[in-house]
């Protein structure tokens, strides 16, 4: 929107090596510090991935442990739990992508449409509070609200002579509870980035549209949404990269034994085999699998997005 077509056409300069360096050395200098950071703190410990190919012994260390090739991969890919947790991870992430991903966009636009400055500021500040309440506490509150016998919501339903709903102990109601708590916890926080993007909209566009007699919804459709499209696309690609990884706390705490077959995900699986059973090798294999799939997803979605929308992260 912002880009006037005239400016999109960059001047092409062919530069000799010396003048290229003269022109760009400042950029390399800027980049050097973060790069050193990445090399030391992110790539420095990267030799740890070889644990996946070793019979890791804590005391012999990573270097001293014996190579076992792909044995651990075979073991993991032969575990039934691996597939059920992978399936659940996909399912929960996919539902989140449909429900929880658009939620902050809608909420941000709703906030943007509010004219009263004080109301807007106060709502924003309150909306992002849930992000700061830890899952342990949220879990306690969810049980108080949605339990079958003791839950307040079911208490109200009962007193109105209605049937109680097993919000936490049956598959579909539980999925809704899971999604709802996710939206509730993250939608407000997620609006912040979109609100930052929305500040870039040229207000004159609205004035022009008003002269043309556009309705509010039309203005949202043709001005507001397109202006935050690059941000939406960026976040969507980053989200797709996380399709096979999932946080530990939310499924673990909102989940419970009655719905374990749906709430058991890769992160809880890794926790069980890695930390509690001390099988670091197997845990590393799962981590490596997630990394490879994640990388393929992010690069793939970036590629598609570039073709389709012209926006991407690379």
């Amino acid at each position, binding site marked *: 929107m912002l880009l006037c077509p005239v400016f999109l056409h960059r001047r092409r300069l062919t530069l000799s090596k010396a003048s290229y360096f003269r022109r760009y050395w400042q950029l390399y200098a800027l*980049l050097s510090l973060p790069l050193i*950071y990445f090399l030391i703190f992110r790539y*420095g410990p*990267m030799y*740890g991935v070889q644990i996946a190919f070793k019979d890791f012994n804590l005391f012999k260390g990573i270097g001293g442990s014996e190579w076992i090739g792909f044995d651990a991969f075979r073991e993991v890919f032969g575990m039934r739990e691996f597939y059920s947790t992978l399936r659940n991870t996909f399912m929960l992430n996919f539902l989140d992508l449909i429900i929880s991903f658009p939620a902050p966009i809608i909420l941000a636009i709703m906030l943007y449409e509010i004219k009263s400055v004080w109301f807007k*500021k106060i709502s924003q500040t309150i*909306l992002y509070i849930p992000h700061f309440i830890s899952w342990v506490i949220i879990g306690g509150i969810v049980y108080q609200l949605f339990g079958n016998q003791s839950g307040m919501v079911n208490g109200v339903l009962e007193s109105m002579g209605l049937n109680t709903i097993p919000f936490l102990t049956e598959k579909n109601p539980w999925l809704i509870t899971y999604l709802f708590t996710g939206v509730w916890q993250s939608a407000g926080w997620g609006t912040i980035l979109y609100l930052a*993007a929305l500040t870039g909209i040229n207000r004159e566009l609205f004035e022009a549209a008003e002269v043309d*007699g556009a309705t509010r919804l039309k203005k949202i459709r043709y001005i507001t949404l397109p202006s935050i499209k690059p941000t939406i696309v960026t976040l969507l690609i980053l989200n797709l990269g996380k399709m096979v990884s999932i946080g530990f706390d939310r499924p673990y705490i909102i989940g419970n034994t009655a719905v374990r077959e749906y709430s058991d995900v890769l992160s809880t699986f890794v926790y069980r085999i890695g930390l509690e059973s001390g099988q670091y090798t197997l845990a590393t294999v799962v981590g490596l699998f997630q990394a490879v799939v994640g990388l393929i997803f992010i690069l793939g979605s970036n590629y598609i997005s570039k073709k389709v929308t012209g926006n991407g992260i690379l």
Partner: protein
Amino acid sequence: MMSERTSNRIFDIVNIACVTLFVLFCLAPFLHVIAVSLSSNRAITSGEVTIFPIEVNWNAYIQVFTNNAMIRSLIFTIILTVATTVLCMLFTIAAAYPLTKSKLKGRMLFMYVIIITMFFSGGIIPEYLLIRDLHMIDSVWSLILPGLVSPFNLIILISFFNNIPPSLEESAEIDGSSHFRTLMSIVLPLSMPVMATLALFYAVGRWNGFQDSLMYINNPDLYPLQLKLFQMVQNNMVSELTQMEGASRTALTPESLKAATVIFATVPILLVYPWLQKYFVSGVMLGAVKG
């Protein structure tokens, strides 16, 4: 057909009603935690407390505020958070700006180097060994340096920088401005909203983070506030292992004290956003482009 005015009115009313409803949803649990922090333990454990305190008392807050270690931890965490945020922002900007230049040789390589770290990591043991070899165990640097640049935030910043009309930068370059000056005088001033957002992300990330301090910090004077909160909330949970403690189990932390600590550890960071909101001013970019 209704008049444009009426439809506008209806839109506003529905919109405000929806937002208000969601706001109330978000507020209620927070009110619950506040209510718990002010209630008697009998009322809490009997499940009588909802969003209004019962048998009101301030003992929990008195206990939190008279605990020197708590106050010290708060101050330490504030300073740690400010320092981390400043350093993270400097490094993230330094990485993002060059990577918006499509003509920069090696740009794609650098991008891949960064994106790979979003997925692959060495794991907890090599990371610990690195921190030890750098002699950063029990040092604040172990809480700052390992998370200096978040690839996620970096990519967002790059995408926002990319939205700045190239014409602006190019005209500056034609005027003989160095890259460094273009960054300082054009790119950054135009990017205040996203910078404020990322600063908030880093600040909140540092404030809420404690996993690293679990590993790297043994000195109780350097415990961040969230670690103390975690201890209270988590260490009290009945697990398989605490079962084994049997008769030597220690008394549980009262719920009201936990809740008061939650409030104590949350309110400071909640105040950051309202303060940052002034950077979310519409039309900054517009003025610049037109000018």
